[in-house]
């Protein structure tokens, strides 16, 4: 199954800064204050939303701050397996992005455990683009499902969880407004990408992705790209047929590096995108920062190759 060999490891993000920030995120809500509930977001962006909805009522842990793990590479340690097996609530991405998590859950059946599989939640086919959190409709649905699951586990705090969902939805409003504004001003902006990471954000912003999808898939899966596709991407950059190159910071190889250099030489602005929560960001501020970087690139021709230190609060 092609989806199961998806994506290789991210890597650069395993920086001390990120480890610290995730540790802060976890310790901020974990411990006795968690009221005995442990919730796990397999990917760090789901852990972020989990902790925003659960507030003080659950200890939240992110397993993969580097979720883009090749199943050949990722080896769940016994402690990770124990943590997942004993959690009350687990949010996994699905779409072949974290198949090992499903295997651990199946190996440790627990009728009371709540599992949210985002692929199933959204009703997506297994071949869909796995980077669903870039779609503006995804996280509100996840937040509601998280609140429903938490309410089943702790019915007494149901009203609190529902209120947190409303707060979360409201905090996404600036991003949605910015998306609408971008679409009004720059509809149909031609862009090139290296991987389908932020494709759903680009589509929501009304951009037209000119990179062949087969090239995006080949880079994402670490396969031999077709030379026709490589030539097409190079032509997009060399002949200035795109206004931005959207570049996945977490998966690079000699080919993507050559695209990056060609974009720089051709004076095409570059926007770096990520597959996990960058250091110092919450989900909302991360998405706003990516959109702001895109806006900068399109209207001023300015590159944002890496996101700066995040502002923090949602």
């Amino acid at each position, binding site marked *: 199954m092609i989806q199961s060999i998806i994506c290789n490891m991210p*890597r650069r993000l395993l920086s001390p800064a990120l480890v610290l920030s995730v540790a802060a995120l976890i310790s901020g809500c974990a411990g006795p204050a968690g009221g005995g509930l442990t919730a796990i977001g397999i990917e760090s962006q789901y852990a972020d939303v989990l902790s925003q909805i659960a507030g003080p009522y659950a200890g939240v842990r992110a397993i993969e701050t580097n979720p883009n793990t090749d199943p050949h*590479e990722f080896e769940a340690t016994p402690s990770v397996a124990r943590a997942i097996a004993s959690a009350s609530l687990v949010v996994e991405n699905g779409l072949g992005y974290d198949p090992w998590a499903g295997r651990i859950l199946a190996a440790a059946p627990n009728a009371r455990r709540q599992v949210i599989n985002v692929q199933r939640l959204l009703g997506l086919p297994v071949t869909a683009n796995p980077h669903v959190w870039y779609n503006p409709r995804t996280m509100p649905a996840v937040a509601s499902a998280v609140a429903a699951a938490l309410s089943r586990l702790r019915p007494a705090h149901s009203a609190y969880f529902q209120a947190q969902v409303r707060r979360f939805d409201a905090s996404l409003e600036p991003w949605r407004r910015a998306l609408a504004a971008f679409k009004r001003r720059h509809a149909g902006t031609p862009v090139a990408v290296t991987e389908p990471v932020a494709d759903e954000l680009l589509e929501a912003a009304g951009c037209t992705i000119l990179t062949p999808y087969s090239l995006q898939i080949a880079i994402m899966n*670490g*396969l031999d790209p*077709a*030379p026709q*596709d490589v*030539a097409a991407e190079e032509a997009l950059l060399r002949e200035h047929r795109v206004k931005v190159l959207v570049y996945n910071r977490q998966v690079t*190889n000699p080919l993507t590096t050559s695209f990056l250099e060609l974009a720089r030489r051709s004076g095409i602005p570059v926007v770096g995108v990520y597959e996990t929560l960058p250091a110092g960001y919450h989900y909302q501020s991360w998405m706003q920062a990516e959109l702001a970087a895109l806006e900068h690139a399109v209207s001023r021709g300015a590159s944002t190759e890496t996101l700066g230190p995040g502002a923090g609060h949602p």
Partner: protein
Amino acid sequence: MYPLELIVPPGFLANEPVRTALIVGAGAAIVSAVVGVFTVMRGQSFAGHALADVSSAGGSAAFLLGISPLLGFLGVAALAAGAMEWADVRDARERDLVTGVMLGVGLGVTALLLYLGTIQGSTSGAAIAVLFGSMFTIPASIVPLAIGVAGVALVAIAVIYRPLLLSSLSADLAQARGARVRRTGLVHALALALAVSLAAMTVGAILSTALLIGPAAAALRFADRPGRALAWAVAIGWAATWGGILLAYDSFYWTPGHGWPVSFFIVALIFIAYLLAGLARWRPRQPALRRPA
């Protein structure tokens, strides 16, 4: 539309990844075929395969360190070839054992380096590129180095051609005639390392055996003289490599929008040539069957 365009589609030769693949692929095919004839004659096919597998540790180390993969393959292959010649195990069974153990160690180290490279180096696709080749992602900057490596290997074989031929046919006879068998063996081993590194760059470490052994084995099935065997091996290897690149390029149009790996097509063409060579040997009066695919 010219009839040629049905076979060589427009844009094929103007495509930079294709041009790099054609040049580096031809160099790898020619050197592998020439060295391969001697390797097969010397009964060192398994050693040639093991050398390629061990060199994958160098290729994956290059990914981890961010240096040219050709240099990585080259360094480890040359070290391993030198060690294998130096050990000079005479007994064939023991040689296979030692070779097999080295092969295991090499691939084990490759597994570790690929893991580290994937976690730390932010690289993607290293495993496929190192083990199975990724011809259309070879950077054009590697071309001068590849041509240089191919040239050195061919010159080395040319310089020791006669003693190498003699010692490959019969080591005892060569010794009796006063040839420096050990030095010849060492030069052959180093040329083998160069051939294997080039082949690993193109079709990957695991499949480089196909380029090394396949054309030579096919040629030796029917060619009656060493010179002719060399010429046929070069023709088969070269044709299979360029044919494979062309088919991979064309496959973009008959597969659902992606194209199949070059390595598959090259190895398939070599295998077909090997089968045809067998037919040619059985019925030597039908010269039409002697043509390589």
